[in-house]
């Protein structure tokens, strides 16, 4: 418990002007941004809920320059916030207390691809999808596939332990990172993990992935590449009601089938996605499941048959199979473009990210309907059903007075229901600023204290991404006041 109270904000030993001068001297003025109009871009992330202005942004071009900038800022007691593409959905890259944002945009090189060991060495600013494109030549791909994958970076994916539809079968980011070079708050450079498996010592890399920039800044990653499957089948199961769709998901998992991906879309979301993306979803359906299986050709027919039988037994109206790669790509375009499409329903959104045991999906989905009615909101569920990872999308129009508070309260109620069902408060979007205060729903003070001790071991200066992930810090309560500056729904946000 002690660490809760003893956390204090470090004293800033340089003025902002001095800090800018030091950074410019050390890594060059072109890599240091500090004019108001230059800083605007770095105030928010994909959640667009919490906003805060950084004091300075550095854009280093090498690990050494990251280390130098971090050392200068850390020694002077200024907060240090790593930033990839800024597509995060929990405020992870928002500079809650101001400070120095370290943009990794210039560290965007694929250093090499090693097909024999099935791995790639990349800089953190490499865009997720670009790595799979580069590896395609070898019949390999990077398995974590967050819906943001055309923009989000691998460094950001590692910081947030990003998921994605195909993580159902292939695992989330932590299962695919095998080594990393990181910069600690004192500017030292440390190597975690190894290409040689199980090297003796503690698995610090395992704790680092998903630490949301609070332990250090990653400047190079070694990631696993996965062989492309021999064959893929993609189906769309169509339902007139939400519950049989949810039942189908639970029944598929309970039957011991783990598809490559098992996604659900429902309600008004289906209609607007169809209007904007033309994915081939029937607009009169209440729910659809996007199901993908992959593997050896020989096994897919039988598995497809079993899945179809389960869906029909649960009450599916129909089941379509993608005929070719183009049709498959269209079905997926609908899923990946879902969030942007929902801007047609209401201009603003709040996305929740909760997880429930897969056997409890039906009841929690039913609850979202009830919450929508009680709070007078539109709620659309578009999510990773096979993992039990819900993404209720709460849609509203900020011009309506009081609607934001209502939406936040509704989101909180759904999230609480996930926890009550035996689940958790985030499956892939992270805790960031948004859910810090919910951590006590699932962890005791002793649990959180052990986490704070890990943080203190990495960051004794207490400057790395303050106010994030764990409830701590006296001045962090102020951050919530910055809320209310919501932006119109971004066409480039993904869930």
């Amino acid at each position, binding site marked *: 418990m002690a660490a809760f109270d003893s956390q204090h904000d470090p004293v800033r030993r340089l003025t902002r002007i001095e800090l800018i001068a030091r950074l410019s001297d050390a890594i060059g003025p072109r890599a240091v941004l500090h004019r108001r109009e230059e800083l605007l871009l770095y105030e928010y992330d994909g959640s667009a809920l919490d906003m805060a202005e950084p004091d300075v942004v550095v854009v280093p071009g090498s690990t050494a320059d990251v280390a130098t900038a971090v050392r200068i800022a850390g020694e002077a007691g200024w907060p240090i916030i790593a930033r990839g593409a800024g597509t995060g959905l929990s405020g992870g890259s928002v500079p809650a207390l101001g400070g120095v944002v370290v943009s990794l945009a210039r560290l965007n090189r694929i250093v090499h691809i090693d097909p*024999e*060991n099935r791995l790639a060495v990349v800089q953190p600013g490499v865009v997720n999808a670009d790595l799979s494109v580069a590896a395609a030549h070898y*019949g390999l791909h990077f398995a974590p596939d967050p819906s943001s994958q055309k923009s989000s970076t691998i460094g950001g994916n590692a910081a947030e332990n990003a998921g994605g539809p195909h993580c159902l079968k292939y*695992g989330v980011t932590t299962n695919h990172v095998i080594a990393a070079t990181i910069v600690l708050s004192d500017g030292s450079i440390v*190597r*975690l993990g*190894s*290409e*040689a*498996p*199980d*090297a*003796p*010592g*503690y*698995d*610090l890399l*395992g*704790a680092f*992935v*998903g630490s949301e920039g609070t332990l250090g800044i990653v400047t190079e990653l070694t990631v696993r590449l996965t062989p492309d499957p*021999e064959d893929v089948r993609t189906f769309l199961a169509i339902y007139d009601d939400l519950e049989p769709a949810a039942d189908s998901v*639970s029944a598929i*998992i*309970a039957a*011991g*089938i*783990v598809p490559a991906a098992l996604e659900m879309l429902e309600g008004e979301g289906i209609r607007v996605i169809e209007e904007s993306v033309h994915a081939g979803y029937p607009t009169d359906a209440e729910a659809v499941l996007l199901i993908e299986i992959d*593997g*050896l050709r*020989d*096994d897919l027919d*039988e598995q497809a048959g079993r899945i179809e039988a389960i869906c029909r037994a649960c009450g599916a109206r129909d089941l379509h199979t993608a005929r070719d790669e183009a049709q498959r790509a269209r079905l997926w375009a609908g899923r990946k473009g879902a969030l942007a499409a929902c801007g047609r329903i209401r201009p603003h959104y709040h996305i929740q990210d909760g*997880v*429930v*045991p*897969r*056997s409890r999906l039906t009841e929690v989905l039913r609850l979202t309907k009830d919450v929508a009615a009680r709070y007078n909101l539109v709620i659309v569920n578009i999510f*990773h059903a096979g993992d*039990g990872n819900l993404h209720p999308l709460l849609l509203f129009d900020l011009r309506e007075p009081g609607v934001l508070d209502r939406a936040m309260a509704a989101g909180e109620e759904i999230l609480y229901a996930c926890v009550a069902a*035996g*689940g*958790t408060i*985030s*499956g892939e979007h*992270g*805790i960031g600023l948004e859910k810090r205060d919910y*951590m006590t729903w*699932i*962890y*005791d003070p*002793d*649990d959180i204290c*052990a*986490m704070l001790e*890990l*943080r203190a*071991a*990495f960051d004794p200066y207490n400057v790395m991404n303050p106010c994030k*992930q764990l409830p701590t810090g006296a001045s962090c309560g102020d951050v919530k006041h910055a809320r209310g500056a919501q932006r119109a729904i971004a066409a480039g946000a993904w869930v």
Partner: protein
Amino acid sequence: MQQARPPVHSTMTHEIVPHTAAALAGVLRDATNDRRPVTPWGAGLHQYLGYAAAPEALQLSTRALNRIIEYNPADLTLTTEAGITLDDVRRTLATHRQWLPWDPPAPGTATIGGLLASGAGGPLRLGYGSPRDWTLGMRVALGDGRLVKSGGRVVKNVAGYDLHKLHLGALGTLGVIVEVTFKLAPLPDSMTTITVECDDLAQACRLAAQLRERPLAPVSLAIVSEPANGNAARGSVLLAARFAGAAGGVARQISAALSIAALHNLNASTHTGDLDTSVWRRISTIGAPPDHDRTLLLRVGVPPSALHDAMNALQRHAPGDSVRIAGHAGVGLAHAWWQEIEAHAAMRALDGLRASLGNLGGYAVVERAPEALRAQLNLWGPSPAALPLMQALRQRWDPAGILNRGRFIV
């Protein structure tokens, strides 16, 4: 929660057997206050790892923490106390045609907690990953007696740091694992192994690479090199490849694998059912020490493409000529037995091996040394670059340094 019963004390070994996690944590709290060293104890199978325990150490047993807490077949998740044996878990899961795809040696006696703490793995690692990939959460009694949890009971969770990963292979030096939640997998319909007698290591490694080319995806792929003995003029090299999944896909992979062996003019045999299981049980024995005390058991890790070089190095640097090696292709791990050695030869050999492996980006750990050598050898090898971070963490969780004091690298 069970009512705390007084722990059982055994005068012979300073053994304590708490019946609840809270009682176990209480023992650690007291030991920290007394600065009394503690040896966390599952089945005791891996106590050969690391340097010898302090003679005054308490033996803190998890064997009374052996209940399955929650098994949800429909969610493919299991939460269990850590003192249960792997076989007991397997039997429960098998009733629903599920499993934990993890095949370390001695599953009948080894406990889940002991296996995780000692970093024990098996040949299925190639196809299914390591326990790290299947562990969703844990409750752990830290060295100072705090009972903390991390992770959760659902298959996806990014709330907080994955503290549980820190205890895997940590030899209980940060805390004692008392409860674990695993993600599970459906049992594959079919598992079949082919074994191929190869002419030499180089040929076996070439063949192994071919057996991983698409669409082949073996779940285990081991190369076993045995020394010459009285009956055989020269040593033997055996390649074993195991395929798992739906029957059709397994059959096609087996037939493709047999064709590849035939192209090399090598004899291959196919093993199914109990025979399939026994091939891998036999290979696993090289990952555990023999029952006599004259052998050095080594674990070597390298990037997978360097396995051939690593196995060569294990033979080349061996102080005697009697070497058994099981290498896991595609994973980059190998276990080896070095036989009949004396201290100076062992030290020289180990230095030479580590120099060779260092060039390959690998390492060697002495998992077991003959008792007479244990204190003299550098068992864990050079310190990792992140050792100061590891020490800083241990200082916070085990402030009196009571857990397996002096035995591990940290």
